[in-house]
């Protein structure tokens, strides 16, 4: 009997370790995007006969949502699944322009403080009409503290009131101009839900939110699956009746990447997300498997290593440049991601039309790095070969989120650790689970970090690099991990946020990116990886602004 508590504790410890090690991508905070209407479709080009009907099985490796209403919290797993049943007000085309969805038209006042939206005629799947009062109820729901919204709340922060002009017209009043408003409203995290559904209360609404989307949630077996059936009355963004070809979707949660792939190969499931780079390569190399690869990078920020310029040693731009010049991530990316990830030289995702790429700033140059460190006063070397200054070692604490960095990315960090050692940097990589990792960031216990951030549109620059992003949210979270506090950059970002002129906004954002790159605050790595493997399905729509998949036009081929 005396051994009992020990055993129970051992199980708890195993859970802790597994939680820390499991590679299942975790919810990442924030995420905006606009949805493109009816846009690009990625379908395999096979000639296999398609058939109407059938239930598609999707296996997700993302953390299981704790609530199916993406207003609550607001993370990527919620965006993935809610794309099937909720729709945002507007969409986003590949060129970055906003497209109509539940709002058919919009105008903004001269001062940028009043937006008028004309609404499409739609009915929520619970029979409630979609109208201006529904839009008002949704924005108020996002802003209600009891909703506990994180992402959507930030997206509509500047909206002070939604005025119901009439059934088909909603007027947004803003506290200050917001050039990113349409991009913010294009995200799943601000998608429209039935006000009748919301009125049921959070507990009930979390289980089955009602939207205007192509599918309807009919059941949720925790840790296992969510069941969805086709909405026969679905009307698409162009106003055409477009019921899905599928009968429904079984949305399963399978945390282990190898098991997901095995289930796809053996035909148990039709679509998987978050495949590991080696399985993508294996699937592409063997045509007999009949597996199609969808590479749909997320919008907003690129994946990068942020150097904490708020404290020593990276408060010195020469030390930051030396780190970046000696890191040499290119060969590692090629080897570890086997061409599934392309090196980036921009603060923004390659899907953002205004992204500025500066490859020349990131070329590997160990001599330059050594010269810079000598100039910065890190002239001595200790017995282990690391540089020192006044007896202190040139040391970089690098907490790694094991839930957000896939094994290949963690291996890449180890290669960078070895590369910068040549220049005399000591990098201390510490793997942490999500909660402990955010706690380390909140306590400023890092000199380098790689934190994903999904948001639709270049406004993500303001969140990640504006000095206001160094002020922590009440939870301790702050988005500006590089700790950039640059008045000129702030001015550029503020102006870009306030302007109503698209060309001027693009120009300001390009200047801002140059300033970020030339400040050597970040080492860009690659787009936020967002891969899917598909077998026996055609007509998958990849155009959602947050790069999720929609199965409205999909059908099974065998």
């Amino acid at each position: 009997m005396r051994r009992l508590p020990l055993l129970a504790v051992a199980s708890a410890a195993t859970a802790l370790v597994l939680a820390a090690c499991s590679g299942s991508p975790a919810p990442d905070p924030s995420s905006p995007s606009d949805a493109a209407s009816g846009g690009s479709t990625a379908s395999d080009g096979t000639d296999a006969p398609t058939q109407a009907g059938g239930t598609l099985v999707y296996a997700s490796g993302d953390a299981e949502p704790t609530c199916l209403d993406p207003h609550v919290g607001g993370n990527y797993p919620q965006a993935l699944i809610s794309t099937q049943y909720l729709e945002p007000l507007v969409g986003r085309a590949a060129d970055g322009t906003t497209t109509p969805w539940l709002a058919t038209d919009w105008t903004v006042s001269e001062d940028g403080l009043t937006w008028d939206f004309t609404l499409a005629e739609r009915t929520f799947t619970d029979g409630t009409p979609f109208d201006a009062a529904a839009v008002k109820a949704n924005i108020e729901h996002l802003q209600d503290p009891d909703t506990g919204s994180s992402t959507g709340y930030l997206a509509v922060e500047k909206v002070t009131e939604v005025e119901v002009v009439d059934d088909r017209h909603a007027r947004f009043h803003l506290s200050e101009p917001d050039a990113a408003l349409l991009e913010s409203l294009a995200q799943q995290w601000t998608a429209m839900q039935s006000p009748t559904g919301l009125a049921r209360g959070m507990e009930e609404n979390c289980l089955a939110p009602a939207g205007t989307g192509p599918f309807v949630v009919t059941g949720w077996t925790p840790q296992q699956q969510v069941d969805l059936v086709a909405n026969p009355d679905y009307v698409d963004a162009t106003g055409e009746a477009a019921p899905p070809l599928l009968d429904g979707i079984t949305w399963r949660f399978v945390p282990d990447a190898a098991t997901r792939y095995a289930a796809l190969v053996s035909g148990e499931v039709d679509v998987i997300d978050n495949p590991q780079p080696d399985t993508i390569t294996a699937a592409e190399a063997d045509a007999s498997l009949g597996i199609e690869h969808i590479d749909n990078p997320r919008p907003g920020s690129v994946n990068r290593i942020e150097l904490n310029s708020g404290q020593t040693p990276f408060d010195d731009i020469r030390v930051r440049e030396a780190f970046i010049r000696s890191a040499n991530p290119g060969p590692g990316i090629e080897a570890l991601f086997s061409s599934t990830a392309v090196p980036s030289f921009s603060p923004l995702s390659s899907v953002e039309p205004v992204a500025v790429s500066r490859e020349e700033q990131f070329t590997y140059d160990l001599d330059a790095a050594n010269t810079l460190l000598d100039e910065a006063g890190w002239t001595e070397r200790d017995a282990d070969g690391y540089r020192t200054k006044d007896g202190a070692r040139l040391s970089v604490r690098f907490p790694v989120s094991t839930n957000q960095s896939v094994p290949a990315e963690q291996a890449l960090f180890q290669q960078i650790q070895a590369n910068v050692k040549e220049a005399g940097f000591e990098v201390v990589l510490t793997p942490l689970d999500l909660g402990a990792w955010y706690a380390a960031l909140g306590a400023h216990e890092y000199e380098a970090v790689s934190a994903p951030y999904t948001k639709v549109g270049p406004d993500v620059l303001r969140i990640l690099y504006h000095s206001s992003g160094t002020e922590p949210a009440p939870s301790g979270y702050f988005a500006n991990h590089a700790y950039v506090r640059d008045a000129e950059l702030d001015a550029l970002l503020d102006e870009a946020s306030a302007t109503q002129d698209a060309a001027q906004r693009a120009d300001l954002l390009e200047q801002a990116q140059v300033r970020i790159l030339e400040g050597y605050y970040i080492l860009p790595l690659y787009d936020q990886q967002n891969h899917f493997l598909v077998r026996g399905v055609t007509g998958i729509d990849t155009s959602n602004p947050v790069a999720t998949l929609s199965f409205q036009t999909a059908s099974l081929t065998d």
Partner: protein
Amino acid sequence: MTTTPGPSRRALLRVAALAGRALLVVWVTATVVFLALRAAGGDPVEAVLGGPGSQAGPEAVAAARAQYGLDLPVWQQYLLQLWRVLTLDLGDSYARRTPVLDLVLSALGPTAALAVSALVLGWLLALGAAWLVSWARAVSGRLAPVGRAVVAVVRGWEVLASVLPHFWLGAVLVALFAVGLRWFPATSTPGSLAGLVLPTVTLAIPLAGFLGQLLGEGVGDAESRPFATTARARGAGPTRVFSRHTLRHAAIPTVALTGWAFGFLVSGAVVVETLFGRPGLGRLLVDSTLQRDVPVVMGAIVVIALVYVLLTVVTEAVEGLLDPRAATTGEDR
């Protein structure tokens, strides 16, 4: 004047002692879980607000803290959790906002199915191996080298099986039987018997290794005892000696270990349920630990601890049946 406690009083004392031990177990586990989750870092309020890294506004954070008592001093939060555990009112999940008891109970079924099937299969494999060894030891003459080889192979298999990590074994079984032969699905859902096979085998093989080693040792020990020699002298064959005499002797310590085996299965379930995408207590523990969903972790661990207590009582009773000495003394060994 001293009196010998009557049978009913003795039973009462035993029940009281049992309840005391159960309370002690629950208190220790609840305390360790509480401390471990605090030591792990991260703020539980984030579980309410969409998980770690939440950017929720000040009002939302304040509302969540107040609602779940997270604004109280740490010692009060500890006492509150303890009180909830003791009254079995486990409260609501931070992340899901549904009663913890519902979550834990619905996860308990699939894990119990998995643990019981693995325990049965593990015992069958261990019994088979022990019988094989006792048969192989009994062969003589020209076949003696074969017998020795069989013993060596079984012993080697048991040692190897007992050290195989679950995640590795599971991955190999999936590659072999789900992707290669396609006999069984790679993922497992409750209600699907075919889906139960690979997770069960993954858990049962290392367990069979442990149980088999222990059982084999006991059988070997018993075979050299006088009662076994007597039985053989009366003309009993190896199978009869095994099934009637030596197994019974060897089974006692092995049965006593079944409580431990359950612990082994639960910690294995943490890995196996995640690997096969199967709902259950293990996966609930992983997910809620990641979320810092304190009430759910607490509830799941306490329920596991209580099942331990229950199993220990049951195994003690079974031991009593197998070994009359235990029943008369009533002592813990």
